[in-house]
């Protein structure tokens, strides 16, 4: 999912208030069209990696520090890479185990498989968020990008 996909997206009343990473992540999971009703919600985990953590939102939050009333309390909640995990859990009512990494995508699937193999979950939503705003790109010397992708792993049913 990219920013272009967000234009027509409607995933509940709160969707527009989420930060960019959370919106992209939510959209990527929704695009999987998983029927979570087929699973026990407490047996579905979420495993997410964010390439640059929440730094894009951090920059936005801190830019508002001198505004009237100070920085935004709403935005502060998104200055955690795991905010997207929380939004996915809330939207799809998934109460299973959570993992959230900062760094490359390759870590997600092996860790999700491990959650399932160890019996901690029967399925796991895997999400990668790669969000670097133009402002952040200048600071960390990486190119701007805004994408998220997701897959779903589940235990093989007998």
């Amino acid at each position, binding site marked *: 999912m990219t920013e272009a996909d967000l234009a027509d997206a409607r995933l509940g009343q709160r969707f527009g208030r989420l930060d960019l990473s959370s919106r992209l992540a939510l959209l990527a999971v929704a695009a999987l069209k998983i029927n979570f009703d087929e699973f026990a919600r407490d047996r579905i985990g979420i495993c997410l990696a964010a390439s640059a953590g929440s730094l894009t939102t951090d920059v936005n939050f801190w830019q508002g520090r001198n505004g009237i009333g100070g920085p935004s309390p709403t935005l*502060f909640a998104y200055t955690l890479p795991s905010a997207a995990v929380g939004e996915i859990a809330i939207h799809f009512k998934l109460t299973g185990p959570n993992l959230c990494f900062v760094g490359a995508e390759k870590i997600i699937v092996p860790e999700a498989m491990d959650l399932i193999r160890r019996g901690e979950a029967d399925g796991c939503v895997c999400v990668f968020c790669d969000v670097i705003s133009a402002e952040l790109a200048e600071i*960390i010397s990486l190119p701007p990008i805004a994408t998220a992708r997701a897959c779903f792993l589940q235990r093989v049913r007998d």
Partner: protein
Amino acid sequence: MREPVVIAGCGVISAVGCGLESLRVALRENSSGLRPLEKFNPPRFQSNLVGAVPDSFINIENPAWSLANEALQQACAAAQKILSPIPATRIGLVLSTTKANITTLERLAENQPGSETARRHLQADLLAADFATAHGASGPVQTISLACVSGLTAISQGAKLIQRGDADAVLVVGVDALSAFVVAGFTALKAIDPLGCRPFDAARCGLSPGEAGAAMVLVRADFATGDRIKIGGFGSSNDANHLTGPSRDGSGLAQAIRGALTAAKLLPHDVDYVHAHGTGTSYNDAMESLALRTIFGDEGPPVSGSKGMLGHTLGAAGVIEAIICVLAMSGNFLPGTPRLETAAEGTPKNLVREPRFEVQLKNVLKLNTGFGGMNGALILQKL
């Protein structure tokens, strides 16, 4: 049968000083390290009472590095004999942090100079990579950022890396430094207690921001000898309820506790002590109390919390609070709950206000919860 993973060494730097002994003394005396810091004066910030590490230990350009590096040095020194025969490729590192070196962002916004390293350490995964290089860990490196459950999750991930055979030893390090960024954020949420954090107190009204570096060395049990404490089990869940508020019924945290008990093959009555998350916020302490009653009934094990001593150290909280459990287990005492005066209605009956000595702790439960509805429960067990 999974190979047990044990704690071979710990290191800590916090508001009560540098080194395990300073923490041990503070725990036994039930003292608080919270103090006013001018740079967080109201009205810009809700309170200037914070859990700050003495300035002499902090590199102001890269505080996250200085805090975590100190803790790692202590932990690695404590475990030196065990670590030295293990090849570097078999030593991993897991970093727990919520904001890494966020102070660099503050400095850049004010057009203050920042070194390339300080700028690089804005990125938590690069901070982790540099810790691994500096401390001879060329095995797997992971960076966990799961709000205030990061620390317990990092310990669990460290144990998993060893149990999966990916490493023989893992350095787990938790860190977050005090920053205007975080204190302004909690101020915006009106989540700071102007009088200082008072976990489970009837008059509690918020947390106190804190900073710390905390580290532990995990190894396969057969590498260590003597009295050993193992990672017994971990449970994780999500409330799926609200981004910044906990569930009102405690069911998510109870689910995480059940997961940890199952993983450790324990029943609730086997738990000798619970070290609570205990943020001092009204809703979180009430939720945690409900979760404990759900699992343990009205007469549960002793419960206490340490955020009135250290403040809320975010990414370091789970690691430093697990170390507190280790000190309690090895020192045969129950930590108290600093700054608690009058226990609120509905809080655990067996809330420990002052430390109790001459107690034996075999199975200890450590809890953390965080923004995004995250819950974590870790069991530590004497082998």
